[in-house]
């Protein structure tokens, strides 16, 4: 995340303390980086599960299969 794209959110101090303890000894060097990671995981997972059902539209699936066939990759 670039610095000019960063915003501030508020969380209870007690929660921040708990997070601080949790990240001790891990690769996370700040509460913010840990919370960003957790939120990204949650948002990504819910969006991914929607996509997982059908990442290709019918039309796209035909188009990409045709491409693979022309490359000799489809059996």
């Amino acid at each position, binding site marked *: 995340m*670039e610095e000019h794209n960063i915003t501030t959110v508020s969380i209870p101090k007690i929660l921040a303390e708990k997070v601080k303890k949790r990240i001790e000894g891990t690769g996370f060097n700040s509460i913010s980086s840990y919370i960003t990671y957790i939120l990204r995981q949650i948002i*990504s997972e819910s969006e991914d599960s929607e996509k*997982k059902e059908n990442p290709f539209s019918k039309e796209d699936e035909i188009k990409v299969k045709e491409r*693979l066939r*022309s*490359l000799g*990759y489809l*059996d």
Partner: protein
Amino acid sequence: MSKVFIFGIDGAPPELIFGRWNNELPNIKRLMDTGAYAKVNSTIPPSTIIAWNSMLSGKDASQIGVFSYTYKDEDGNSRLANSGSIKCKLLWDILGEQDKKSIALYVPLTFPVKQVNGCMVSGFLTPGVESDCAYPEKIREKIISKGNPEIFFDVAVGLAGHKSLDISTLLERTYEMTDMQIELLKDLLANESWDFFISVMIGTDRLQHMLWRHFDDTHRRFIKDSPHKDALKDYYIYLDKKLGEIMELLDDDTIIIVASDHGMFKQEGKININNWLAKEGYLVLKEGIDLSEKKRFDTKFVDMDKTVAYGGGAYNARVYINRKVVGADYNKVKKELIKKLENIPNDKGKKLDTKVYSSEDIYKDPSSRECPDLIVYFDELRWASNPDLGQEGLYSWESAVGADNAGHSRQGCFIISGKWVACKGQIDDIDIKQVAPTILRLLGLKIPDDITAKPIEVTK
């Protein structure tokens, strides 16, 4: 702390990179001279989408959960593999858990993209620029702003397809695609922060499949004095120049890896695997299947009450044994099939150097229903597999669709250079699964317990 940058060259064969054209690739040569290099044993099978993901996870095809470009869904329909098909963690997942940033560009099977800690642009299975091809979203605008976003992800677009392109158009498109891809690569390299960066160039694979018989005078269908005889070499020289420009942008602490997922060599022809299985009595088709014209193989044509085995696979052959019919004789049938497959000769009756792998021997997790029972490398992959029905006999040459000048070979390239790299010159062949733990170690991170491949000893 070091950073790692991988310049992936799809299908680059060691015979050309380390050998025949090495002196004409000064930047690759410089990395080899200052660092270490090895041949890489690819995945079984050496398929692009499996091999890159093995390199980035340290896992085999069964642990990744992908055996070919398609899989059957619950209703038996053939679906395209995609990023959601991958069952294991990839490097950017592992790095994200430890607050490290990754940039992954054009890696096969990353469509639809994931919201990684860093940036991602999907690879050649991307339907188009309007799909989930870029994260964060602002990168999509960058792609659209390039000259020809329609061919940004692959040159094989349009109804005409790859094989119908004339060579000049194919070359023109490949350079245009690569120029756009490298322009974005340089932009992100300079303007985003990262610990690990990988970019995969697909152009080499696309050209090799079509151009092999233009320069290899041992090819069965060699084109003498082709105007395109130097076209593939020229493209490698161009890529090497681009690599040199990228190297200028990297700082001294960055470790550079140049790697390919598999190699490539001339293709002799194709063995009609299902014709052979039918002739030997293993495959029985349902009554009324019209074989007077060529048709793509589909399991719906198979009489599953009588069939012992059927085949698939475009380069390697995959053989599936029907447990319902063979029952307790499974091992006996498998043994017998292996022996017979190994003895299929070439069209002139000469013995081939065929290898047949049993999934239980090569995979850690062979339980998936997509997992074949046997994987066959006819003549070490110099002969491909053709599962189509309605073919005459056991051999076929040019197929109606599909590039068939060259096929994937089992060894790719690996070059590593940087100030932390202590070993020099050619080292013993490595396994593709060793790359991921090597990178984790170079980044100073713990290697997860479920990665059992050993890192390559490269550091001081």
